[in-house]
């Protein structure tokens, strides 16, 4: 799980300065954060898919005019309109979370690439930054 720069054992003489150490640390943190965000994103995508499935099922179930929706640890009987309202609310919440994650990932990706370029420029092949 360690995503840090490791120095090859036969490291050529490139001095590690405090600022280099800080960059390496930052790189490790960003790497971890990106992994966390990817997991979060996947979880949200799953819920969104479930929502879509539910919507389709409801559309197909023409004979039914009420459905049980899980709310907290109970199920609530709702009519079709209420159901749609419920779904829309959920969806817009998730969409918002998703777009927040996306923009965070974009920023972090950029920062990570910058750090990588800087560190490789200084240490060349004596440092190994995991992807």
């Amino acid at each position, binding site marked *: 799980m360690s995503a840090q720069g490791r*120095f090859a054992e036969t490291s050529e003489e490139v001095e590690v*300065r405090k600022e280099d150490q800080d960059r390496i640390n930052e790189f490790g943190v960003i790497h971890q954060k990106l992994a966390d965000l990817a997991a979060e994103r996947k979880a949200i995508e799953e819920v969104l898919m479930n929502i879509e499935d539910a919507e389709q099922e409801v559309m197909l179930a023409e004979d039914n005019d009420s459905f049980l929706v899980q709310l907290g640890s109970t199920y609530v009987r709702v009519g079709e309109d209420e159901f749609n309202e419920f779904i829309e609310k959920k969806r817009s919440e998730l969409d918002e979370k998703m777009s927040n994650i996306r923009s965070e990932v974009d920023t972090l990706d950029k920062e990570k690439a910058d750090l990588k370029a800087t560190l490789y420029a200084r240490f060349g092949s004596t440092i190994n930054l995991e992807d």
Partner: protein
Amino acid sequence: MASGAAATSGGGNAAKTYPFGLVEKRTERNIPMVTFISDVPEFMKQDGAELKNVMEALDGLYNELKALESRFVNMRQVHKMRIPEIEETISVVEFLQKKAEAGEDEPMITNFQLSASIFAEAKVNYNAGKVVLWLGASTAAELTFEEALDILKTNLKRKEDQLAQCEEDLQLTKKQVTTAEVCMARVYNNDVKERRAEAAAKAASGKAGDEEEE
């Protein structure tokens, strides 16, 4: 449902100390801040700073940091699970509140869990405008929707703050782990370099039979 105040004590053990000034200080929550060694050869000139001793100390520090890291990861998990629970509770209260405000008079029909895999149907009268909220410590209180939402949102906010704090500590710890790792590599590399230099010096001074170690 315990409020789950973040345990910050560090398990009750006194803060470990490390030789050679490896730890410059500790944070409020007892995270050891690893000293950045700017000059390794100079660092190794300290009293008793032989490779074995320094590596041992670094190893101990590294292990403490790794343990701390996994504790923060677990704590974060706990917070992360609690937040959706509160959010769900809020959405239930809001659901009732909305129905009451819309002036609907049909009771809400709900299936609630009696025990594992048994559900019963209940009619919930939301027009009284009240819910009973579990407060913890074996206490529940009947509150208006507004009061209940108020409490729940305060709880949510607190949990989110705790999560953010935990996240911050985790990152700080991670940085210390990285610093310690890099430090180990540099101390080790420095040693290799010094041995090589010694061997080269010996070879140069005519003692050709000497073999180079490692």
